[in-house]
């Protein structure tokens, strides 16, 4: 059993990072805060039975809640992906990617991804989770993670075959 006092330490230590994850998913700080807070509340109620890594627990709530909300089109400000102007971002060289314009291009491209694919990209390449851990967080199979990743990378014009994702120790 995790001590309830640990909860406060956890919030203090991990909120900023998890907020960024939520922001990557929602693309809006306000929604990201809503999402994080909902996850934190659920964690507070369930704290006594959270075993292992509470961050993984909260991250999972964030992702599943995000996908649920997205399905409900709860965020009116967010245009559903299928209604957005179709087309991948302009291709840019890796060297140039660090510029603001190119960051913006990637940001917009991420925004065009459907919720599931965006979540996969965030978990695999921002959170740096393995395919197995990503599947656990999303509650789907590793095969689904692979296929969703491939589709998302294609839309982002990222060639995963050039340098396949490394096998990483579980987060």
């Amino acid at each position, binding site marked *: 059993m995790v001590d*309830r*006092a640990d*909860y*406060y330490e956890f*919030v*203090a*230590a991990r*909120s*900023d990072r998890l*907020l*960024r994850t939520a*922001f*990557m998913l929602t693309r809006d*700080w*306000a929604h*990201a*805060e*809503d999402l*994080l*807070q*909902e996850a*934190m*509340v*659920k964690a*507070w*109620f369930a704290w006594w039975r959270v075993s292992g890594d509470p961050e993984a627990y909260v991250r999972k709530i964030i992702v599943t809640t995000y996908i649920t909300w997205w399905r*409900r089109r709860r965020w*009116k*400000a967010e245009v559903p992906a299928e209604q957005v102007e179709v087309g991948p971002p302009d*291709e840019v*060289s*890796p060297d140039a*990617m*660090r510029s*603001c314009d190119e*960051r913006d291009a*990637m*940001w917009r491209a991420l925004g065009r991804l459907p919720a599931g694919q965006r979540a996969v*990209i*965030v978990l695999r*390449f*921002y959170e*740096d989770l393995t395919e197995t851990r990503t599947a656990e967080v999303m509650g789907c199979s590793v095969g689904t993670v692979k296929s969703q990743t491939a589709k998302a*990378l294609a839309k*982002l*014009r*990222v*060639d*995963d075959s*050039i*340098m*396949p*994702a490394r096998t990483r120790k579980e987060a």
Partner: protein
Amino acid sequence: MPMTSDDLRGLLRDEGFVGTPPGNPGRAGQIEHRIARRRRRLRGQVAAVAATVLAVAGLSTAASRGVFGGVLDGGDPAASGTASARPMPTVALPAAVPVEKLWPQAVVKVPARLPNGRKYYPEAFVGNRTLLVTTSGGFERTDAIWLYDTGTRRLSQVTRVTTPAKATTFASDFAVGDGRVVWWTARRAQGEIIAEIWSAPLSGGEARKIVTMPAGKEEDSGIGDLVIAGGKVFWSLSAFTPQARGGLFEAPLTGGPPTKIPGTDRHQIVEWPWIGTPGRNDAARPVTFKDVRNVVTGERRSAEVGPGRWTCDVTWCVSYGGPDTRAVRRDGTGGRVLPGEWPFPTDIALDRFLLYSGPRTMQLYDLRSGRLADLGAPRQPRSYTAIQPGDRIYRMDRADGYLIVDFTAVR
């Protein structure tokens, strides 16, 4: 040339890609603002959402400052020198008594569906046993208002509710008085959020728009609170900025241009006729409604509370954001520490009731009598509806239907 997956990893993890959260002092206020919207738009929805409502301010503080509010920060109440900094005794909570037994005259239990089979949401009492209820035509979207006699189970439609095109907030904050019901909606028009107040006779009839006014530019801009009094409708804005200082507005219930009441910048309604500042959404506060004034008598009151985050009603203030909850009167008397962990900010309903969490059930703590009423278990575990100062009722969505407490009938 396409990027590699490592390029993508590096780009996403670059500090500049995501940027910095808007961790300015106004953030907590903005969050509570969203809460208000969410409470409206998702009212009757699951409660984990409502739980979020309560949790938000504490957590937002945590997220922006890395810690919970002052109480948990180690803010020592004894160090502040204020009246409420006197040591507070931890009160022994009495055993919780089922609310039906403790306040039988104030409790109504009704089935989860109306006689016509529809799901509904109780909004207010109109008389002793008659409820004003709303039904929804879709997610969050109210389509009709009804009067439901909980004694005879008779149902009559008050009016139909239409949702404007480009709505940003669906019909919210139903208030009754002077034989009418009012509510508001908001829509986007040319970059502005336009709030509109509607009115219909309780005896039945068509809804009529009685007020139209710009309410801000944010998606969730709108009206913060709405009351009927003396043939008029009064309201404040849900959020304000240095450029838009909100204030208390009024209009005739029969319709007409809104008038701002002078000297009410940044005020919101606490418990009519009391208004207060800083409001629920004001960036400036650690103490919500630190200063209140009665718009009828002109009486003013301020709060002397210790460090940390507090929310006040007309008489009482409650701390939140820490591992315990403290309650104290504005003048510093009656201070007490309520046992149990409740790290989420909670409002006070009708200046006396606090929502409390039991082991498996929700409870109401009466600051006036010190009694604890058990509301039973919510239909969905860990879910409940939040309370706020203007509330006259509390509705508990239980497995056996709604349990509704009429705060005004508690003796």
